[in-house]
């Protein structure tokens, strides 16, 4: 009989709407990160580095890019005879057919998948965090504390604690209370959305709560286990962990990689991060190029100036172009003499010659001020920006834009130019 001690379930179905046009056509876990990676590479690499060789990836929102990226799991050594990576989309059933209505509901709909591996423990992960973590150490903690459920937590600054789900623990690490975004936090330990369940407890909770609308781990399953008097422990994690849920935090996390010795170091031999390498050739830096404090991906050609930026694979930065404090994703083309300041240019976008991004004042976005802020200019994937235009701050541009879309050759700060029709 097949027997896996612990299997992982990776929640990768969310849209991540706060990343704006970056997630218009791809699920958040498939968004590019750090020059050559995608966000999901981090939890997947953590799994294989922790010795977990069975991972179910739950997909729902725009799964094409994610599916192509994961394939049969070759980059992560997750192509296995038994186990390996399995992509789990919602499916039709006899009687009640539904989408994944919540995180726990998605897991519930895949009880049969988990059951087939006869696990003792199930690790629940989300596909949108940047960190390196040894889940095996967490499992040891779980076992040694005789826990039914272990929640990974990390200390956050006390003044920020009210933004998180906070757990309160006793001296043995047992959880005594939960506070969801409390005004008066009683502790500074924030839940990281990483759980280890005893298989029996998880199954029992999911079956009992199966009728719960939008069944969610944080809102329903964990409180249920708590009420049932099960042993919930908190596993304290003290490394780098970043939620890249907003454009601001996404930009910041990318920029942190540039530091001389970054807190999150991709160059360490130990705990490698794996990804699907679509482009192999080296990058070419021309005689007139200038590069200062940047990460640059494979197969990229730089003819201009790049400063404090993350450049993906297969990008072309034209002659005389200046790219500052920006993120350029795979396959994008930056025209000659274009100037980019604090821009995020998504995959395969084309920026015309002499065009300027990130000019003018910092005026909030008129359509979605909560998304397009931080003074960033966001260009959606496959977007075309014509030559000789100026684009302001807190803006978003998608689709094939033409010179006549820019009155006076300008898109003012705070405006949105959505030719692809993806900004809902």
């Amino acid at each position, binding site marked *: 009989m097949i027997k896996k001690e612990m299997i992982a379930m990776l929640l990768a179905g969310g849209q991540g709407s706060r990343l704006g046009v970056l997630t218009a056509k791809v699920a958040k876990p498939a968004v590019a990160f750090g020059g050559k990676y995608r966000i999901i590479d981090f939890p997947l690499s953590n799994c294989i580095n922790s010795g977990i060789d069975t991972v179910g990836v739950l997909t729902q929102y725009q799964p094409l890019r994610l599916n192509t990226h994961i394939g049969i799991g070759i980059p992560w050594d997750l192509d296995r005879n038994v186990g390996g990576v399995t992509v789990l989309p919602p499916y039709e059933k006899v009687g009640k057919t539904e989408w994944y209505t919540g995180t726990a509901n998605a897991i519930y709909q895949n009880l049969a998948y988990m059951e087939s591996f006869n696990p003792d423990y199930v690790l629940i992960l989300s596909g949108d965090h940047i960190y390196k973590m040894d889940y095996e150490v967490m499992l040891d903690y779980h076992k040694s504390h005789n826990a039914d459920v272990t929640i990974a937590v990390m200390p956050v600054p006390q003044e920020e604690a009210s933004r998180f789900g906070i757990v309160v623990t006793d001296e043995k690490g047992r959880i005594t209370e939960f506070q969801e975004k409390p005004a008066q936090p009683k502790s500074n330990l924030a839940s990281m959305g990483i759980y280890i369940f005893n298989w029996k407890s998880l199954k029992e909770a999911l079956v009992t709560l199966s009728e719960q609308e939008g069944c969610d781990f944080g809102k329903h399953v964990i409180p249920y286990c708590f009420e049932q008097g099960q042993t919930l422990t908190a596993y304290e994690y003290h490394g780098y962990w970043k939620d890249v849920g907003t454009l601001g935090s996404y930009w910041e996390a990318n920029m942190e990689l540039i530091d001389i010795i970054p807190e999150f170091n991709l160059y360490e031999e130990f705990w490698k991060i794996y990804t699907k390498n679509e482009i*192999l050739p080296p990058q070419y830096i021309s005689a007139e*190029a200038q*590069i200062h404090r940047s*990460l640059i991906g494979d197969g990229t050609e730089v003819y201009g100036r790049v400063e404090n930026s993350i450049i993906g694979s297969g990008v072309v930065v034209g002659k005389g172009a200046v790219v500052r404090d920006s993120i350029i994703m795979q396959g994008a083309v930056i025209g000659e003499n274009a100037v980019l300041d604090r821009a995020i240019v998504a995959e395969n976008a084309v920026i015309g010659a002499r065009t300027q991004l990130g000019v003018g004042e910092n005026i909030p976005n008129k359509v979605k001020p909560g998304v397009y802020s931080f003074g960033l200019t966001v260009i959606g994937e496959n977007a075309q920006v014509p030559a000789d235009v100026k684009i302001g701050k807190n803006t978003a541009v998608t689709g094939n834009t033409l010179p006549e879309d820019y009155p006076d050759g300008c898109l003012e700060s705070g405006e949105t130019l959505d030719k692809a029709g993806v900004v809902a």
Partner: protein
Amino acid sequence: MRAVGLILAGGNSYRMRELSNKRAIAAMPIAGSFRSIDFALSSMSNSHIQKVAIFTQYNSRSLNEHLSSSKWWDFGRKQGGLFVFPPMQTADNGYWYRGTADAIHQNLDFLKDCHEPYVVIASGDGIYKLDFGKVLEYHIAKKADVTVICKDLTPEEDLTRFGILKMNEDSRIEQFDEKPMAAASHTVSCGIYVIRRRQLIELIERSVEEGRFDFVRDVLIRYKDVKRMYGYKIDTYWSNIASVESYFKTNMDFLKPEVRDYFFRQYPDVHSKVDDLPPAKYNPGAQVKNSLVSSGSIINGYVENSLIFKKVFVGENCVIKNCIILNDVYLGDNVHLENCIVESHDTIRANTYHTGGDGIKIVDESSERYVI
């Protein structure tokens, strides 16, 4: 595809000097992130050849490491696949490979068990892209016994290390000399051949029986006038890397936009083993001009007209000009290198100076690396 591929990757060349001390020529790193044999393997894979045998002998461990999995070239399959054949002792053979024909002969059972009617034979030291489907069409249309891929080189190049061909108007080979001191033409054999499988088996069996072990001298040249041999001339990029000078020049060719465009941007791609290294990093003080930089490298100094291979660390105030820095090299601060090839995994201590002068210096300090 109706052909099986053979890659002759067992040889050594004194022309590679120290560079062949620790690796087979077919495993020489090329263009920042490839190995020499990737080009033959990718051409075969991209031409839908499904079954490839590689004959290895000299320093084969380096090559075996690179061939750790056949999936990188899409050869990880049930129909066909990648076969690596080092010499082996059997009840009736105790020899190493005594030559290229002997290498094929010692593995003749493999060829006999194939069902493909044709064989493509290539070496592991050529840098090119080739559609073997087209070559095979040509071979069949010409009713040839053997087709030899060839290319016109410029008169300035050293022709004495190549096989020289002379063909008539119909491209039939009239003259074939192996490494002559005075070349009869500028057309050189690329070391890539197409031949009918049964024909190959017959010729190899007869040659080895007579104690002749070299495929070019004892099979091709010897049978030139009794078999129909044709040349298939290519005008695309081709280069042989089996000397230090040509190895250096071939790598430097990748600094030219047309060469990069041909190999890196035009379909089909060249495949290689994936190393899972992070993007290259440029710290303050980095200045890079007209150079190729591969993943995993960290640059703190000045680099000009050079190739930086994978996972290289360039320290502060370094000056690197016209150099090839192979994989996993650590250059301490204030290192000054000109016209050098730095051997892989080497550690160059701070304040070191090396120059190749008018030639090319192969730097191998073999110093200890201190890992904190």
